């Protein structure tokens, strides 16, 4: 950098060229990795979307929607407390069995519905990306057809 000119009126273009010539001589201080310029960037800028069906809460719902075992109180051991717990559990379950069956069915349907909505949202979310890829494919096919036409002796472009 010390070799750069310090004239009264500086020409920015010549400074850039001098910097580039230093790099070309292998005197650069940094690894010069290439970073692609914006081409498709603005079109796929939102591409880092996490699919909803990968959300941890949905997996928890899958694992825990079935709570049938939780309402069966087996008690621990054969002491009086355990015996009373089993007795009460049998009474409560007997009285509430219809409600519990309804609730179990409701929970399973809620889990299925949330699951279906998650996959549907993911599908909608990625539909535009699929459309984009479809459009690229169609354009490339059109261009390939044109190249074939030119190779077969087609006319000039413009």
């Amino acid at each position, binding site marked *: *950098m010390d070799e750069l000119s*310090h004239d009264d009126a*500086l020409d*920015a273009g010549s400074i850039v060229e001098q910097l580039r010539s230093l*790099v070309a001589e292998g005197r*650069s201080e940094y690894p010069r990795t290439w970073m692609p310029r914006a081409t498709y960037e603005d*079109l796929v800028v939102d591409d880092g979307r996490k699919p909803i069906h990968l959300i941890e809460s949905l997996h928890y719902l899958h694992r825990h929607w079935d709570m049938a075992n939780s309402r069966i109180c087996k008690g621990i051991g054969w002491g009086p407390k355990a015996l009373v717990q089993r007795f009460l559990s049998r009474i409560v379950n007997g009285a509430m069995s219809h409600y519990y069956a309804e609730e179990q069915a409701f929970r399973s349907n809620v889990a299925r519905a949330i699951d279906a909505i998650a996959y549907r949202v993911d599908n909608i979310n990625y539909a535009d990306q699929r459309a984009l890829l479809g459009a690229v494919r169609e354009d*490339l096919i059109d261009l390939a057809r044109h190249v074939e036409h030119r190779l077969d002796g087609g006319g000039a472009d413009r």
Partner: protein
Amino acid sequence: MTAPRKRPVAAIVTRFWGDAQGEAVAATRLLAGALARHADVAVVQLGETERPVHIDSVFEVHPVAVRGANPRRSALLRAALAGRVAKSSPPSAAAELLRQYAGDAPDVVGTLDAIAPDAVILAGFDQPWNLSTLGVPGSDGRPRVVAIPFLDAGRPLRSEITRLVDHADRVGIIHPGEHARLVALDPDREPDIMPLDLAIGVNRHAYADPLVGVAPFGEYALLIRCFPAGSPRLARSVNAEMLPSILKGISVAEVDGETWRICDADNTYVLPVNPSGVNFARLVARARVTIDARPPGPVGTITIESMLLGVPVVVPDDSASRAHAAAANGGLWYRDVGELFDAVRVLVHSPIGAKLAEQGRNYALAKHGDIDDFVARTAMLVLGGDRAVTPVQV
């Protein structure tokens, strides 16, 4: 007692209108505002629908639907074609596809007939309607037609630019780089090309009132990854973590959409964001250098703002910003991240930075610092004659 002169009517036909963020929209509005000093301005807004999607309280807007347009496909194909050798003609199949993707807006003709303008401004190369209905340049009864192609608002084919220019009496350019490109297309039209040199309003007092939280970090380089919030952003680009180790001894402020921060080797502080842009001007005014790491825009507004505030710039090569920096000798430009690092180090650690800052400021003040000059230039370009000298009284 003489009767008051009738104000002329100017119609702007453009896609660059409405509430969308973008340099082209802001520039077109600026143009309309300047023109309104001398003429009644009507805007024919090309869009997806004939219904107004944006209520405009200042200008008379006539929404016209573009039917069958496919802007996403068009952008993809243009991006693919941009990788070709610059001087080779694109395949005719590609040109035909682009014509299809542009759609059709036949209602523009009827709308212009109803407005009956004295001057028509074609803002943007994307004009999917029959320009021949404007008549032959120079013929009697035809409105004065001015094309402002915005060559960097997309990747226009040469045929698209030629079509626009051929139907225009005058051509306005947004940045100095457009001049050479237009002259290369048709050297005979060089006398008809006029620079607009947009007047960019900046808070000249921004330096007096630094942004809260910045002072403890000392001198800093300003890295802009996304501004204004919601505008396009490169997913992979240099960021605030990379720069302090490269610059050594100087902090880095980063503007990334709605997240602004300043950091040195050890500390990071999240800065307050103000959508009005006041804080942005404060941040720019105190910076040693402004690094523009955004996707290149068609106008280079931030480059001009930065130079007006006396801060040198580091901008992408092959962009409108580069054209301003080169014309002003007010900054350097880069092709890759290595060149970006080199340029920033030169500006920060040598007297070259201060010299380029001074040159850039002088140029920006002369070219972009006077709103009255800009109004006069716009009137001269669009209305011709002596409008700039004797504005019509309302």
